[in-house]
């Protein structure tokens, strides 16, 4: 910690040294970084390093069952089907939710670019889920989409269904809650990226006789793609760390046993801190791998200005 802090400290001694340091960008103003650096080292880097250290100090119980000495926690993570399966269960929720939020937002954002009556109202309604929070969304889904909820009652009374749909306490419930909280976010982001694309490009293509599909695939989509990648990453990160809704509207010991739930169980219920840290760190790693793949793919996309908001 001290090594980092001294970097920001102005060097004492001769003026020429101070000048030489200032040439490299080290001067008194860097002191303003010190609180932030100290903060991030104390509350982020140190706990992370400590947690990583913990993963190499498995409990005796874990070593006995899984062997492998200091790597017992990792052996357990990959070897225990009950734990390792949750990587797949998390990805199965987060990737479709993020893809759906992004893909559905594209046509909507394009359609709603133009001015129309009630646009303000619609934008307000789309911001509403931010104030709902995960708990009210979960509670509402349980009441509204439950077996005896309005949705099933309406569908049965209209004669569309005979038996109620099972929409909560399973995979669909969590997916619905991820869409309700994630879609407005994706929509607003994509709309802002879209508003950064110069409309004269589209008009120019139109005047040259390009059809709707051609204009979309050759102008809008390539310009929007970097923004889409960013939006995907942000909604994916939100969906990947799903925890409250996986417990409340999902089936936390079965189909929605996501990594966050597993990590919390080791932490709060079994008090196995080394294993909890192992699951938590593997969860971060799995997420960063997906993010890295998307960023890598994005680096092949058009790298220009899309209006300053990219």
């Amino acid at each position: 910690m001290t090594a980092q802090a001294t970097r920001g400290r102005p060097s004492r001694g001769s003026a020429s040294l101070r000048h030489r340091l200032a040439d490299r960008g080290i001067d008194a103003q860097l002191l303003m970084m010190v609180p932030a650096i100290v903060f991030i080292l104390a509350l982020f880097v140190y706990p992370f390093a400590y947690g990583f250290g913990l993963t190499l100090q498995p409990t005796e119980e874990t070593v006995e069952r899984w062997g492998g000495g200091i790597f017992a926690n990792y052996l357990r993570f990959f070897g225990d089907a009950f734990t390792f399966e949750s990587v797949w269960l998390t990805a199965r929720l987060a990737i479709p939710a993020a893809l759906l939020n992004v893909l559905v937002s594209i046509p909507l954002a394009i359609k709603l670019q133009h001015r129309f009556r009630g646009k303000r109202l619609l934008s307000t309604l789309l911001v509403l889920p931010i104030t709902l929070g995960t708990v009210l969304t979960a509670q509402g889904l349980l009441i509204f989409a439950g077996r005896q909820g309005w949705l099933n009652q309406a569908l049965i009374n209209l004669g569309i269904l005979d038996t109620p749909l099972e929409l909560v306490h399973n995979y669909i419930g969590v997916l619905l809650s991820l869409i309700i909280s994630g879609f407005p976010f994706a929509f607003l982001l994509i709309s802002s990226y879209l508003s950064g694309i110069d409309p004269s490009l589209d008009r120019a293509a139109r005047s040259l006789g390009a059809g709707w599909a051609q204009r979309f695939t050759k102008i809008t989509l390539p310009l929007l793609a970097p923004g889409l990648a960013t939006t995907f990453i942000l909604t994916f990160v939100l969906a990947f760390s799903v925890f409250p809704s996986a417990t409340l509207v999902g089936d936390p010991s079965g189909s929605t046993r996501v990594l966050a739930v597993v990590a919390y169980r080791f932490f709060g219920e079994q008090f196995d801190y080394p294993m909890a840290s192992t699951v938590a760190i593997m969860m971060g790693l799995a997420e960063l791998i997906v993010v890295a793949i998307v960023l890598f793919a994005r680096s092949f996309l058009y790298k220009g200005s899309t209006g300053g908001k990219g």
Partner: protein
Amino acid sequence: MTTQDTNRSTPQEVPVGAEDSALPVPEPPSRQRGDDRIPGDKSLSAQPSTWLAWAGIAAFLVFLLGILISVVIDSFGRAWYDDWLPTGFTPSWYGQAWARFELTHVIAVTLVVAFSVVVLSVLIGVPASYVLARHQFPFKKAVTALFLLPVIIPPITFGIPLATVIYNVGLGRTVLAVILVNLVPSVPFVIITMTPFIEQINPAIENAARMSGARMRHVFLRILGPMLVPGILAAAILVLVRTVGMFELTYLVSGPGTETLVVTIFRAMTSAGGSEPRPLVSAMAFVYTAMMLVTLIIALRFVNPTQLVARVGDTDD
């Protein structure tokens, strides 16, 4: 591949057009209704894809309003089984929830935590983002990446090691612990949003002040401060909303008496041995949403969160 080629054939237009769009040019006439399409094009409302888009929006709104209205009705309902509406209405669930969960205390904790986090993260974050925006120094990229990490990795990933450390230090289940864990994503969030905001403020203004003899302190308080206020307020509101809604981190380190409202509701919904009566939870969930809504409405009267991006146009002229 063909899409890339099309792009390369028109490399000139893109940056030029982009600059144009940042300036407050008058709305081009073609933006107006109906004028947007050439005569041969079908009307907007006639396209099947438009109907599909509206159907999607409608389905989303049905769920959204259904969720909201059913929670509100449930929180006022006497008993609600498989009918359209509860058998009777009563406001008593709110009183019961208030007494049972000591909501006055819980809301006080929530507000204390939220405002402490906002103030601390602005105090720590804004000076750092000033340096990041104005200075080149060794390892700048590494430092920036370090500040980005807490925002993109899942809260549970750093929350569990952090909570372990906090319990080891003996701070577990205290309000201080709740504030500390919530700072971890908030300070980087302030830095990430404020750095571009400061970058677009013209450095010539500060230099002029310094040339005229203003000391560093004066430059910050009299020159930069007022110009930063809109950005700081916008970032502060986003941090406030995130902190009030933050579940995972608070859940890991809070205990009885130091829970925020979200955690209290979650505990009520999952309490062992059969959860609390449903309307009780609905009442609390509605209190939470009402609190959030009031905060947002008050906040939006004073600031516009889009100022973080939209100020670019204002300061240019």
